[in-house]
């Protein structure tokens, strides 16, 4: 997945799969998380590139926003096989929950997916700004 605003690292977990993300902004963090999750689903599979989709997400804190976004992207994949190869996140912060609009570019998988993710767990879910960097951690149920 094309992702230039974040660093994503796979977490070793005996039961499941997880990623840690670091970025300079919350939007970059969310983009990196989408990229990391899709990497797990996709593995080395080829992906089409002709479609654009948009998903929205919201959360009362950055961690719940992150989970909601990942769930919605996973739902797209589950529903009709769409897999993004690029994503751009725009944040809408007001007085209520944080909202994100994510524009995804991609298509259907042309090879079998590598991994079925059952869900985006709340276990150890974290997303916060530490110093000048945004950091997040998310565990997926496999």
């Amino acid at each position: 997945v094309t992702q230039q605003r974040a660093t994503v690292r796979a977490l070793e977990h005996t039961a499941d799969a997880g990623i840690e993300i670091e970025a300079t902004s919350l939007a970059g963090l969310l983009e990196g998380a989408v990229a990391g999750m899709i990497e797990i689903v996709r593995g080395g599979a080829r992906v089409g590139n002709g479609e654009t989709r948009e998903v929205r997400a919201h959360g009362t804190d950055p961690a719940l926003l992150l989970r909601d976004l990942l769930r919605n992207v996973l739902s797209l994949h589950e529903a009709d096989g769409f897999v993004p190869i690029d994503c751009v996140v725009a944040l809408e912060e007001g007085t209520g929950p944080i909202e994100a609009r994510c524009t995804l570019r991609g298509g259907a998988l042309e090879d079998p997916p590598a991994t079925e993710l059952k869900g985006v767990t709340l276990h150890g879910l974290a997303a916060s700004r530490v110093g000048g960097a945004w950091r997040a951690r998310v565990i997926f149920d496999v």
Partner: protein
Amino acid sequence: MPQRTESRTLRLGDLELRRLDPYRWVIPRQGKMRVEGMIYADEALMEDLAAPGQGGDEAVQQVANVACLPGIVGRSIGMPDIHWGYGFAIGGVAAFDPGQGGVVSPGGVGYDINCGVRLLRTDLKELDVRPRLADLMNQIMRDVPAGVGSRTKRTALSAHEVREVLAEGAGWAVRKGYGLPEDLERTEGGGCLPGADPERVSPRAIERGRSQVGTVGSGNHFIEVGFVDRIFDAPVAARLALEMGTVCVLIHSGSRGLGYQVCDDFLDVMLAAAARYCIDLPDRQLACAPLTSPEAGDYLGAMNAAANFAFANRQMMAHRVREAFARVLGRSHEAQGIRQVYDVAHNIAKWENHELDGAMRRLCVHRKGATRAFPPGHPELIPLYREVGQPVLIPGDMGRYSYVLVGTGAAYRETFGSTCHGAGRRMSRHAAKKSVKGRSLRQEFRDMGIEVRASSFDTIAEEVPEAYKDVAEVVEVVDRAGIGRTVARLHPMGVLKG
């Protein structure tokens, strides 16, 4: 790093464990723990758990976290196959009393609601099947969809039919001709849990389930053809119709995407409920609601419905397996004596009666990666098994062996009638894949006499035997601790991995 502070204590992460006897380790109450924790393990399993990179400190912390939840009674328990999960550890058991503010938590059941195991036995012996094994495994692979996102066009259901499945469970499948009425009585809860409420299952969950009934799925799910290669308790084995050489089939799967969606939907509900009822959560994945609340009632209604979907899923697969045996071996499944031994869940929360402090109490028992193991004489057991105890089915890895046990009185007294559920992972999927680079796994299995079928090489690589603990060690601890009684060992011949 784990640090041994004295001969009978062990420090894992922030917690100190005290060894009670060779198979029991106590986590004394500390911090916000309402009860103590108990982990069943011998020295070797505990050393393995404590080894760097095993996530053992996280798993033990999860047992302690569960002990902090409101209304927990007895102990927060970890089985010998315990490993790091999310919220609850995999291999975790906890019971909650509604009269003491007890809760239900989707994280204590898991995404794959009623993930479980079904065992079929046959009149066939190993040598009856061995010459046609490759054909048999090919036929099973054709007839039972397996792998990531596996779906079936053959039995895709309407939304209305999915709701029927949610209400009727395995009975729906038998009513439609997929199996035998006797299969139902040899299934936990008759293959249909009471209290299922399809109206509490979201349209999205129902949509996900429409094309997934009768499919294996992915990850560690499988269909395994094997034979009995060791009998530990001949009279009990005879009651289960198992003898040396008997060809058996193990089916391991759950509620597929429908169950995952139910869990996901209710995590949001439970997060809000935990805030509303002022429940302090040590981990958000332990989001929960008091058992007396409407949120708990809704979740249990949906969870039981998803559990029924899982029973129907395994029922359909068992039927397809019977058909595959008939087609490949040229005799009807009746003539081959293919009968169900038992079907049991290992991801579930159930209302059960247990004796606590000298009084019978109605408790909500969570088993996440743990198997019900009711003792001889328990009124919920069918007459066939009432004398010997409930069959317990413990799959191992695909290269070594699996076990059949029965429940015991000690399990009923100590662990709310629960025991282990499998080998337990000891390597992450990523590490497992790295460890097999350059190896020809299919050939390795063939050299071991095992025909492996899978939709992708990655699945086989993630599930190599060394990714798991040796299930023999897990079962030995269970047996010696008395929370299960070993009956027979099954050796794999053919495996269809998800």
